[in-house]
Every structure is written in C-alpha cells, then in structure tokens.
C-alpha cells in the first residue's frame, strides 16, 4: 500500500484502456471484413496484495481478447455452403445447356426438325419439283448441322465442366494447404495448446478457409484440444494437423474430351463428394451432360437409321449406277449382324431391281440375308457374291464387289442399265448405308450424304414410278408421326421436346433449389453476422466508454501525481 503502487494501478488502467481502445480500433478497421469476428476485451482485477485483514487491488489486467463466435453456427454455415456450392454449379451449367437448345420460339433444333419434315411433306406433294428437292437437301443439311452443332456445344459444356473441376480441385488443394499451414501457426501462437483460442486473427482466417473449402466440397471439421482443426471428407483426412492430403487427377480421353479423374493421393480413392461445387460439377460432367449426349445420339440415330432405311429403298429421278456403301464392316468374312455396322441387321432379304432405261424393262432379284443361325450366315463377302450370282445371267453388266476398306460396291458398267433397292426386311440397306440420305451414326457424325446436296435428283422420292411418284417421300413424311422412340412412346419431335422439357425441369429445379439454399446461406450468414459482425455504433459506444475510462485513469494518475508532489515538497 503506497502511492507508488497506486501509480501502478493507474498504469495498469491506462494499459488496459489502451488495449481495449486498440481492439475497438481493430473492430472498426475490420468492419467490412467478412471473415472477421468482432473481438471483445475481458478485464479482470489484477492480483491483489494481501494484508492482514484486507486485500487491496493492484489495478486491472486483460484476461483475454476473445472472438465473439458461435462454433455450432460455423458448422451449419459450412454444411449450407456445401449444398449451395453444389446447386449453384448445377444451376449454372444447366442454364448453359438450356441456352444451347435455344429459345422456345426462335431458331432451335425443334424448329429445324419441323422444317425438315415440312420439306419432306412438300416433296411428297411435288416430287417432280426441283425446288422442293433443293429445299429438302438444304433442310436436311441444316438439320444435320444443327444436331452436330448442338452436340458440339453440349460436349463443349462437358469440356468446360472438366476445366472447372480441375480449377476447383486446385483450389481445394490450395485451401487444405492453407488450413494445414494455419493449424501450424495457431499451434505455435497458442503455445501448443496452452492458450487455446487466443490466436484470434489466425482463427478467423482458418474459419474463412474452411468455409471456402466447404463451398467446394462437403467436409467435416473437428477441432482438437490443441486447437488444430482436422478436416475429413468421404472418410479421408484432407487436413491432419499441419499436413494436408492433396487431391490429384489423372486424365483420360472420353469420347473426344480429355477428362480429369480426381482421387485422393494417399488412398487412391476416387473423389465423390456428396455436395459442394465439385459434386455439382462432377454430376454435370459424368451424369447429366452424358445423358443429354446419349439422348441426342438416340435422336440422331433414329433419324439417320429410319430415314435411310426408307430412302435407301426408294428411287430418285435417275436410277443408281455406281453405289458404294458408306459404312464399312469390321471384316468382310464376319456375319453381318456382328460385323460392327452402326445399325442392326436381321435375318431377311431385300430386292435388287435392275432397270433398262431404254426398254423400260425391270428385273427384280431377291437377295437373302441369312442370319438365322442355321447353316451359313451371310457375310459381306457372301452378300456381294450372291448379288453377282443373282444378276449374272440376265445382267452381267451389274457388278458387285468389295472395296479394300470393307464396303460393298454395286456398279453398272452400262449407261443404259441402272438399279435400285427395295423391300428391305433385313435392315441391311440402312446398316451398310446404301443410297443413304444421311451419313454417320450418331449426333457427332450425322451429316447429309454429299451426293444428295450435289444432285438433289438423287433424293429417293419415288418407289419405281415416274418423276411425280412421291410414294417414298410420303413414307418418309409419315416417319414424323410414327412413335418409335422411347420404346414406341414418342415421335422424333416429341422425343426432342421431352428432352428439352426434362432439361427445363432440371434447370428449373436446380435454380429454385439454389435460390432457396442461397436464402438459407444468407440467413445463416446474417445470423453469424449478428453474432460476430461489427456494429459501428456499438463500437462507437465502446470507444466512448474506453475513452472515458482512460480519461478517468489519467485523472487518477494526476491526483496520485499531485499527492506525490505534495509528499515530495514536504521533505
């Protein structure tokens, strides 16, 4: 008990108020820092000096400067951020996919389909009109281009998603490394667990990193008694104390897109988060986009296969004189249904009709395709031989041969003799691509046969009649109303509309859920902000409080100083 110890009290008070003022300053300075949690200074009375009958205070001491946080809320925020990351990612790429399929009323694949079939109907009505033929050829080309273009853009989305996955994985690695680093720094700052919870700013940084990580993939973060946070995802440690487990990826080509397969470097397990942006991106790249690509392929295949089957067995304005199949077999000695042709070949037959343009004489030969598993089965080699054998007597000018790359070539060496195909029950005409309208076998390869665009008179509108014979075009036009897609439930156009509709439902669903989830995240953020955020008015009051306290302590110091002066002047 002395004036000097009273001076000590004054000093401790000034120190404490200064520290508090500094904290208020820190709070104000970080008012707009999203990661920042406001800090509060806890004052406790300093150690007392014990006398015999009483204790006397020695001033004030800063017990701790702590963050105002709610640890449970942090976890809820991370979970919500994971879900939002997932939904936001889906929302984004679904919107992109949707825009590929075009707006409802404007140029879209649906309109191209309609216009193509309109052109077919038109040709059925005016088979002898060159204009109708040119229109159909160009509509067919536009349709094939549109389907290819859409497919390319959908594939582009898959490529973009892959790029985003790589970026996201790099970001995950950066964040886990940062968290591990922060763990180390916090452990050092908090004296190896003695002063747990004191490294406020480092912890704010770590909480921020955890929230960012959670937005990318769902994680479970556990703080240990020493103050480090271990991060677990899919049962694998991403961060263990000061060590971060890296994600790595290897690339493989899938259908023309180089894709990154992401896995944990330690266990080699494939990364498959339940939520988070990465989960959304992976779902998009590996499920949703491939489904759409498959739907597009089914659509293209249906158009190519069904259209070619009819076109191949019709007749254009001039008969065929040299026809090489557009699709090759894997081996000319393999039975046709196993020879790698893009469309199905069944047991059946087709008819080869040979016409002498001078006399009008038509000879029809039935060519059997034997694939019933009994006896010899038809191979391309045998098909070629049986065509040659059938026509040998009457029409030696018709030659059937195989090309070196496994295609069938039927050729007339006489300019007066042409041929056509008809009554195909085996599917071989479309499978080989004889006298086709389209070439290719899926959305990526679909194109119009170049010979059609070069010479629209090749379009097989008729079935052996004159120039105004539109029977085959009528049959092709009737494809429009045939329900043969989706197991017989949808026409080509309905299938497309169903596809776009399903995409619309998905997009709508994702955007609504993302919106809802965003509201949840906002609410949680607001809740966190309500607890941990800085309120300037509040800080202003604190500022005044500590200012007053400082002024009072200064006054106290002045009084003690005055007393000391009195004392000193007395000696």
């Amino acid at each position, binding site marked *: 008990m002395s004036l000097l110890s009273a001076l000590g009290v004054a000093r401790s008070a000034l120190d404490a108020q200064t520290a508090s003022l500094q904290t208020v300053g820190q709070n104000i300075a970080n008012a707009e820092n999203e990661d920042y949690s406001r800090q509060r200074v806890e004052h406790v009375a300093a150690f007392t000096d014990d006398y015999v009958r009483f204790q006397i205070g020695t001033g004030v001491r800063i017990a701790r400067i702590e963050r105002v946080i709610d640890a449970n809320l942090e976890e809820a925020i991370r979970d919500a951020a994971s879900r939002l990351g997932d939904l936001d990612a889906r929302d984004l790429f679904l919107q992109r996919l949707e825009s590929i399929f075009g707006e409802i009323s404007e140029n879209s694949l*649906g309109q191209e389909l309609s216009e193509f079939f309109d052109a077919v109907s038109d040709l059925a009505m005016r088979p002898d009109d060159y204009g109708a033929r040119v229109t159909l050829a160009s509509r067919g080309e536009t349709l094939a281009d549109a389907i290819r273009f859409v497919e390319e853009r959908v594939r582009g989305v898959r490529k973009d998603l892959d790029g985003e996955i790589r970026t996201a994985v790099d970001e995950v690695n950066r964040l886990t490394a940062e968290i591990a680093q922060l763990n180390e720094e916090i452990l050092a700052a908090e004296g190896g667990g003695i002063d747990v919870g004191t490294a406020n700013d480092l912890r704010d940084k770590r909480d921020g990193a955890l929230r960012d990580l959670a937005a990318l993939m769902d994680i479970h973060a556990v703080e240990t008694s020493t103050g480090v946070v271990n991060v677990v995802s899919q049962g694998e440690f991403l961060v263990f104390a000061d060590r971060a487990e890296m994600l790595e990826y290897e690339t493989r080509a899938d259908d023309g897109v180089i894709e990154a397969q992401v896995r944990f470097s330690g266990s080699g397990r494939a990364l498959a988060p339940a939520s988070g942006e990465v989960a959304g991106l992976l779902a998009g790249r590996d499920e949703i986009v491939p489904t759409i690509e498959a739907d597009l392929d089914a659509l293209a295949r249906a158009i190519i296969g069904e259209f070619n089957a009819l076109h191949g067995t019709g007749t254009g304005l001039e008969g065929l004189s040299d026809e090489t199949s557009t699709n090759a077999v894997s081996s000319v000695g393999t039975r046709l249904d196993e020879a790698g042709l893009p469309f199905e070949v069944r047991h059946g037959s087709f008819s080869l009709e040979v016409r002498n343009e001078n006399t009008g004489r038509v000879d029809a030969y039935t060519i059997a395709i034997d694939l019933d598993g009994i006896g010899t089965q038809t191979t391309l080699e045998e098909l070629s031989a049986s065509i040659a054998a059938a026509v040998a007597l009457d029409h030696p000018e018709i030659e059937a041969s195989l090309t070196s790359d496994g295609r069938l070539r039927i050729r007339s060496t006489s300019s007066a003799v042409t041929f056509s195909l008809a009554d195909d029950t085996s599917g071989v005409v479309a499978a080989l691509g004889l006298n086709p309208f389209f070439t290719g076998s899926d959305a990526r390869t679909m194109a119009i046969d170049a010979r059609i665009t070069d010479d629209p008179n090749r379009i097989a509108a008729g079935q052996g*009649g*004159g120039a*105004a014979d539109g029977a085959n075009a009528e049959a092709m036009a009737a494809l429009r109303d045939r329900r043969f897609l989706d197991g017989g439930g949808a026409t080509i156009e309905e299938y497309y509309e169903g596809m776009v509709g399903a995409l619309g439902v998905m997009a709508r669903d994702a955007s609504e859920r993302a919106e809802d989830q965003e509201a949840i995240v906002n609410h949680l953020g607001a809740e966190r902000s*309500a607890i941990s955020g800085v309120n300037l008015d509040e800080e202003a009051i604190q500022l005044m409080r500590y200012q007053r306290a400082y002024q009072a302590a200064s006054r106290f110091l002045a009084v003690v100083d005055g007393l000391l002066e009195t004392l000193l002047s007395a000696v």
Partner: protein
Amino acid sequence: MSSFPLFTRVSESLRFGNLAHTLAGSQGRLSRLEADLATGERVRVPSDDPLGATRILALQRTLRRSDVFLRNVDEGIGRLSAADGSLSTIGDLLVRAKEILISQSGDTATADTRAQSTVEIGQILEEMLAAANLTFAGRSLFAGSESDAEPFRIEGQTVVFRGDTQIGSVEVAPGMRVESSVSAYEAFGALSATIGSRADLDPVLARDTMLRDLHGGTGVRLGSIEIRDGAGGLTVVDLSGAETVGDVLDRLNDDGFVEADLDAARTGIRLSRDGADLTVMEVDGGYAANDLGIAGRELGAAFDGSDLDPALRASTRLSLLRDGAGIERTGLVVRNGERTATIDLSEADTVGDLLNAIGTSGAGVRARIGADGRTIEVVSELAGADLRIEDAGGTSASELGLVTPVEEILVDRLNDGFGISTVEGDDFVIDLADGTTVSVDIDGAGTLGEVIEMIGAAGAGKLEAALEGGEARIRIRDLTAGTGALRIRAANGSHTADSLGIAGEGTGGVLSGSDLRPSGARVLGAFQAVLSMRDALQADDPDRLQALQTYLDEASDRLLSARADLGGRLSRLELSRNRIDDEKARIEEIVTELNGVDLAEALVRYQEETTLYQAVLSMASQSLNATLLDYLR
C-alpha cells in the same frame, strides 16, 4: 425479401448485405418483367415453366404443321380446279361431237357433209388432246406419276397413253391424305382395256417363297410353335424372323425332332416323325402354326398341312404356276389395233420376265400382276384399238388364261362390240324341213356358248346348233326330214337373228352364219368414242355413226362421274381447309393463354416493383449515411 432476417443486433455487413440482397432481388424482378413486357411471352426458355414449355413446344409444332397442311390443301385445290377446267372443256367438246353425230347420221346428211364433219371431228380430237395434256405448275394433270411425259399422243389411228393411273394426294392432317388429282383412267378410261387371266394361276410353294406372300399375300404371323410326339417328347421351335418357307423348314428341321418338307403337291408343309402321333400347338397364344397350316392334335406320324396359297409375284418362277404344272413357253401373240407383237417366252423364267417380255413388246401394252395377286393382266395403252391375245402356235397364252374360248365370248362383244339386240318374248323363228317351226328366245344369254345352248334347247332335238370350227360363227343344222327349207326369220320384229348373223335360208339343211366379229378388249372413253366417230365419218357409214351414240354417251357419263369424284375431292379439301383454320385459331388461343403475358397485370406489377426499388434506394442512401461516429466530437 422473404429471407430478410430480423436480428436484435445488426452488424455493418448485415446492414449492407441485406440492402444489397434486397436491391438485387428487386432488379432481377424488374428485368424479368421488362423482358415479359418487351416480348409479350411468359415462357422463353423451358425452365421458365417446364410443363407449360413442353405444351407450348408441341402446340407451336402443330401450328407450324397446320401452315404446311394449308399450303398442301391450296396446292390440291389448285390442281383439282385445273383438272376440272380441263374436264369441262372436254365435256363441251363431246357435246359438240354428239351434235355432229346426230346431224350426220340423219337423213339430211350427205357424203359431202360427212366429209366436212370429218375435218371438224379431227379438230375436236386435237382440242381434246390439248385439254387432256394440260399442266398445272409444270406438272401434267392426267399423267399420274409420269409427269414429265405428255400423257396423250396421236399415233396412227390411235391415241397412246404414256402416263400411269397413280392418283396424287396431299397430306391434310398427320397421316391423313386427300386425293388431289383425277386419273386418266377415271376420266378417259385410259388403261381400261384389260385382258386378265381367266383363272387363278395357282403357284405352288418353293423354298424361296416369301412368307409374306402366303395366303394370297396376307402373310403369316410368326411366333413360336410347340410340337409333341404323343409319347412325352416335345420341341419348341421359334419361327419369328423367318423370311421364306425354306427358313421355316430349316428351323423345323434344326433340332431333328421332326422332319419337315414341302408336301407332295407343294401346296403346304409336311411334318413327320417315325412312330409319333404329332400334335402341333401355338406357344403363348400365337398364330404361327395356324397360319402355316400345321396346327392340330394327334395328326399321326406324318401329315400334310393345309394349302398355303402363295400369291403371284414378279419373282415367282413360271414352272411353279398352275399347281406346279408350269407354263408352256412357245409364246403368245398380242394384237393391239394396228400393232402386233409375237412374244417369245423361251427365255422367261419368272413371272417378272413374262411381264417384261409383254411390256417391252412394242404392242402398246403393259403387263402387271392383278390386284388380287392371283392373275396377270395385259393392259392396252391405246385408245381406238382392239386388244387381242392369242397363242403363238403353242398353248402359252391359253395356259395363262389370256385367251377367251369362242364359247365364252360375251355377246356384248359381238359385232365389233355393239352386241346383239333382243326383244321381249321370242327373238326369232326357225322353219325346219319337216314344216315345223321352232321359236327361240335368247334373252339372258351372256356368252356365245349360252346362245348356242339356248337355240339347241329350243330345237328339242330337231336341230343342232354349233360354232363353226372354233370361230365366232353360228352353224345350224336341220335334223328333221322333209322338203321344206331351213329358214330363220325374225319374230316380234326383232333384229336378233340378223345380229347373230343367221338370218336367211340354209342350203342342204345347214345354215352357216356370218362372222360375228367379236371385239377385243377396248378402252371405253372420250378418245375411243371420238376416234371411232372419225373412222365412221371417213368410211362414210351413217349406220355405224348412229350406233356410236352409245359410245359417246358412255364416254360422257364416264367424264361426268370423274368430275363428280373430283368435286368430292375438292369439297373434302375445302372442308380440310376450314378444319385446319379453326384448329389453328384454337391453338393460337391456347398458346396465347399459356405463353402470353397479361399486359395489365405485368404493367401494374412493374409499377409496384419500380416504386419499391426507389424506396429501397432512398432508404439505403438515408440510413447508410448515419452512424454514431458522425456525432462523436
């Protein structure tokens, strides 16, 4: 705004965050409303309203198709109207032809006037040809699918038809077509002169007979069948996907349970298994065994299935015809007016070869398989010519059923196709040598053979009526004894005996009639009638001219009925147009309802939203300005 959280403690970032959120939401809604108002459409991408979008897409597709259907209808109406114009011109020309016919077959006409009329009828023919060869939008009205050919052309004394009888149609609704042209067959009887096989050519089965050609072309329904041997053994044979009779036999034989082959007559399938009592059943309620004619219980160790009746096809081998007896290959002679062709069949293997040989013979004929798939038909392209087919030394034409035996010549065909005339009651009376008379009534006789029979029956043993050596010439022999002359005279004022070529007196108890000149198959139509008139005028034959009135009337009737059909097609197209217009209007209404923006509502909401936005802005600028710090001194 729904997520605007209320907390007792509001931090800086919360204050700004909430404001930013509110403003962003408000801006989003504003831009959405602006787009709605600008486009007038509520659904622009499917996710705006996925269910509505699917419906809108489908409806818009229907709308676009309706436009195509409307174009089709207009095209069809145009084509039919043009055809109607052409037919009405030809109708008027026929009326003029008839006027000439009446005036030139009357008493006032002379050889000179008939010679002048020949020129006029020649002009009428030219004008008719011009009208029948009219085109619409570059396409012949009556050429069928052969639109690039001029369908009718004069060649010698005939008019040749180059087109076909395909009737065009336009699509007026999904899968629904309305005929949009009139065929030359309907209007002018082109290709109506036909000689078809008189009987089913009955091909037998071969291994390569297509299953789809069985049962007259109805085909068979394939599936699995079960065969039991009555002693506990059974096999199931899957026949689906089989294409030919040979495929079916191969599959039946495949597991060796039964032996399958064609039966001896080659009309059905024979199944056998030693010592078995075969039962053949369907599997899963199929029809395969039934359709292949082998279904049945306890059929014995071997049995023949029922007749599978394959239809005639171009690929059918001639050797299979006539229950497997085949066709003799010497050939046939086709006489078509001035043209005659001898067709050699020695190289023909199949029905297709036969049809090709006839069709390319240059006789102005086409050959085809009849619509029932059992006969072949030879059709003349020529109007103004008679089509006849004969054997060329052998029996080919007869075996193909293309030659009509004299007995079966229709009486309507006699006398160059003018037929015979009969009256109510007895038609003629025959005086016999013994002084008795026989009255003959041939009413109801359809063929020359029936006429002979009726005369013979009336004679009751007193006379014999026969055809002279396979010719169309009647011979009557008096079987009575006496001195009277054999004489045939008219009864009831009829011309029957005349028209049968037997009026008059016989010599030596035998009366040989004159040649009855049966006509061949001929076109019945406007060109035929006018060509015949020209011939009759040139030949200066008023009687024949008079007789041609029936032809002319028939040609006019045919034309009228074609125009009536045409009118029916036109009105169906008009109805379709109305239906499509109505449907379009309804769909447009629905689309507007589904996709249209309610302008009043959207504007009100836009106003509200703008006000709100401004309020938030002003609130923000006011409240964010002030903090307690401003007041600290």
